[in-house]
């Protein structure tokens, strides 16, 4: 199946945030990947929640910067996108297991269809948004062992 993957970098986005997830988005201004960490369970969690999913308590949560390195857990290639993405197909979206033990879903860039596999090492690609934030995408980490 020889297909050429497109990216969706230039799709217009107006992303509304929940206040309890703002540290993630503030971090993206400096291209930092901030993930919630439960001090009691000593585990990370993503997506951001108002409480620790391990203890149910807000006070157990803190935010930590992580490397953003991970491996592809699964991916799908959209051949039909929602309205704003139509015309961009086919494009890939991957669920990536970060080295801190959470899965994070994002689009994939700079990757040929035939190279895209489960287990592939990836790192962040930061796409600027109009409001100064960046949107995280995944790109192959060709330096990874």
């Amino acid at each position: 199946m020889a297909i050429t993957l497109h990216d969706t970098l230039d799709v217009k986005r107006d992303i509304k945030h929940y206040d309890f997830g703002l540290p993630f988005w503030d971090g993206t201004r400096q291209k930092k990947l901030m993930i919630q960490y439960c001090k009691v369970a000593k585990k990370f969690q993503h997506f951001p929640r108002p409480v620790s999913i391990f203890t149910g308590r807000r006070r157990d949560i803190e935010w930590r910067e992580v490397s953003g390195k991970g491996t592809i857990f699964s991916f799908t290639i959209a051949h039909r996108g929602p309205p704003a993405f139509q015309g961009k197909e086919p494009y890939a979206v991957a669920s990536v297991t970060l080295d801190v033990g959470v899965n994070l879903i994002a689009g994939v860039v700079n990757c040929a269809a035939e190279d895209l596999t489960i287990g592939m090492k990836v790192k962040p690609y930061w796409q600027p948004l109009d409001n100064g934030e960046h949107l995280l995408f995944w790109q192959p980490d060709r330096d990874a062992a």
Partner: protein
Amino acid sequence: MSLRDSAIVAYAETKVMKKSDRDVWVLAGEILEALLDKTGFDKAEIDGLAMSGLTGTGGASMFWAQSTCDMLGLEVGFCEQVHTGGCSAVGAVARAAAAIDAGMCEVALCLYADTHVREHNGRNDRNYRRDWTDPYGLLGPPGAFGLLQRAYDAKFGVDLHALGKLAVTQRNHALMNELACEELRVPITVEDYLNSRMIADPIRLLDCVMLADGAAGLIVTSRKRAKEKGLKSVIPIGYAERTNFLGGENLVDVTRSGHEIAGTKALKTAGLTVKDVRSFHPYDDFLIALVIQFEAFGFCEPGQGMAFVRDTDLSYKGTLPLNTGGGQISAGQAACSSHNLIEAVRQLMGEAGERQVRDTTNALVTGIGWINYGRNWGTSAALALVPGE
């Protein structure tokens, strides 16, 4: 006192339409009329309404069930809008039975009416999607099931011919179901499945349900009342649901679901083992969900779902009849996803015509509701049914 003290005494279903030619409340009214005619209950005797909240036409309304009571002239002591997504159909039966058991009503209408193709009034979902998946164009359920099916493939391997067999088996059932969506009542082959176009690779068009319009309903009352009225009945002998399975954990095995827990509990309550199940009516939004459910309920070991499909005659005359009305995938995703439930009741009442299963000792119906972040689904439900005396 338990759920099994209740009885489903009638079902009704409109034809599934690609797009309804009439209003959702007209369809609801047709269901009410059919159920009154079938049972001989007077409208005033209906004192409970359990309505599925899985509706594009009414779902954005916080007052959908109450508005429907008003439209249909129903005065009830129990008015419920069930919000467990695709589990709402079986969930409505369980909640109606619980309400009857608790003395809140005696005769409940479970109503599944939706015209989400003709009139979709938008949705006001508040969840992870706006921040975490919408920015990437991950297309709702097909996108999520694309991630799920590829993860299943990496762990256990996907046999596309087995998925094709599921598609063909259910399609053959729809061909025998005159209420299935007419546009879907066209024979297909495994080749057709394999060649159908990609939507969210690896999800193909023929992996997916098609939205359609229609309505269905059930009357649930006490077993005692059913007997007094001399009505044919189907008894809900076991029910369980599980929402947010492993929700307090991070990296979970996406090939496992809450059906492990809901299935075990529902069957145990019913006094059945999975080997006793005589026909299986699992929620089908995507074919891979059927395979994962075979495994979760214990029809086969984890990872053996594809082999189980290859080795089992799943037709209405087979060893484990599967979604004998066509399932949603071949009948159309209409009537708040109640199709498989209604079909199971019809089968146990012995009214399925040329697709009637031989063994009506029991039937197992399931639900799948909502899509969570990078996992499989939010709610899993199971309902075991047996014919009444």
